[in-house]
């Protein structure tokens, strides 16, 4: 029977759906194809041509944009001659005093530190592989860390929050966007593409065996 058949296979050649535990033989799908779970339709493997290079470029751009968005003015407000500029860090650290300080730290982590850390980890872990070098020390654990952080990276939600804030104070004062806002908007866009291009199974496989980059080239 099929079940005893697959039970004899070396577990290293198998892939289990993380959502429903269905077991498959892992096979790299052809170009433009994706391997999905037959039972719950979760995408299991979705490689893309030259994905490594593109992901590194996106991560570098994200790094620059986060740093830029932190230093340049973000939003500008004016009312009756009073003008105030706020940077991203001002917003993140705006909860001062007592227990609200915790909230400041949490917001800073969600909109600055986590996106920054994920960009740095991506470059460190995948950079060498893209240039045909062996995976750097600790690559597997660091990539795992980056994956755990994924739901806690909330840059795109913060960007929508800016739009809501703009409307909220519209009759109170005049609000305008600074350069950092547009950098941040760019960051959101790049983050979405980044997550779409990254085939996690291919990365894990490449990090485990250290030959991912070369094999990708052979099939490309």
């Amino acid at each position: 029977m099929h079940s005893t058949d697959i039970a004899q296979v070396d577990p290293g050649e198998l892939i289990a759906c993380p959502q429903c535990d269905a077991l498959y033989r892992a096979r790299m799908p052809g170009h433009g194809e994706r391997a999905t779970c037959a039972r719950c339709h979760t995408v299991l493997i979705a490689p893309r041509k030259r994905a490594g290079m593109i992901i590194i470029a996106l991560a570098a751009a994200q790094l620059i944009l986060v740093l830029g968005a932190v230093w340049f003015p973000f939003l500008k407000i004016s009312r009756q001659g009073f003008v105030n500029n706020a940077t991203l860090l001002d917003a993140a650290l705006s909860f001062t005093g007592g227990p609200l300080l915790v909230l400041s730290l949490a917001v800073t982590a969600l909109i600055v530190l986590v996106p920054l850390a994920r960009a740095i980890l991506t470059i460190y872990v995948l950079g060498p592989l893209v240039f045909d070098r062996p995976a750097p020390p600790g690559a597997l654990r660091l990539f795992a860390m980056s994956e755990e952080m994924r739901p806690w990276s909330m840059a795109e939600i913060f960007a929508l929050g800016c739009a809501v804030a703009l409307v909220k104070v519209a009759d109170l004062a005049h609000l305008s966007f600074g350069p950092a806002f547009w950098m941040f908007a760019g960051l959101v866009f790049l983050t979405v593409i980044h997550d779409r291009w990254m085939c996690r199974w291919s990365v894990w496989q490449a990090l485990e065996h250290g030959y991912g980059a070369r094999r990708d080239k052979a099939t490309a």
Partner: protein
Amino acid sequence: MSGPVTARAAGFVACTRCTRVWPGGTAQCGRCGKPLVSRDTHSLSRVWAWWVAGLLCYIPANLYPMLRTRVLFTTSEDTIVGGAVELALHGAPFVALIILVASVAIPIGKFVAIAWLAVSVRRGSRTTPHSRHRMYEIVEYIGRWSMIDVFVVAILTALVQLNLAASIKPGPAALAFALSVIFTMLSAQAFDPRLIWDRAEDDTDAGPRA
């Protein structure tokens, strides 16, 4: 109809983080380091613990003011719902709708959905595993977006500091609401979706035999 073989049925244990498969009984994923369990039996108690914590924070989040706005010499305090109603009355019904959906509809929907999923894997359900799994995916994806109201408060507090003309300060509800969002995200993450499919198998197996 028989579905694909599961890792558990074939005597393996799978890593839910990196999808690597290991011989049954392996304690930790040799690839990504995640502790391995064929089925997370403590999953449901962790789901409920975070769920209760989230709900306990959600109540004060709605009772206390989110924002304290001072314009010239008048100060007003807005709760989440109060702020949205004010926005709607001031000609921004669309934004009011975003706030209401993100801060009221999504959190409440999430509490209901997680509770229902947790109960259904214990007691079984007539709803197909496909739709329940779909619901789980939606809950996981959408839960983060509730954080938007906290961010709006952060932005307004940083920005609206115009001496005498106007100033905005955060209220205690901001912290309670942020905690509620974080706890419900942890509750959803603690849920092991493989339980939905196991139960489905038990249900369909029992069907023809009975």
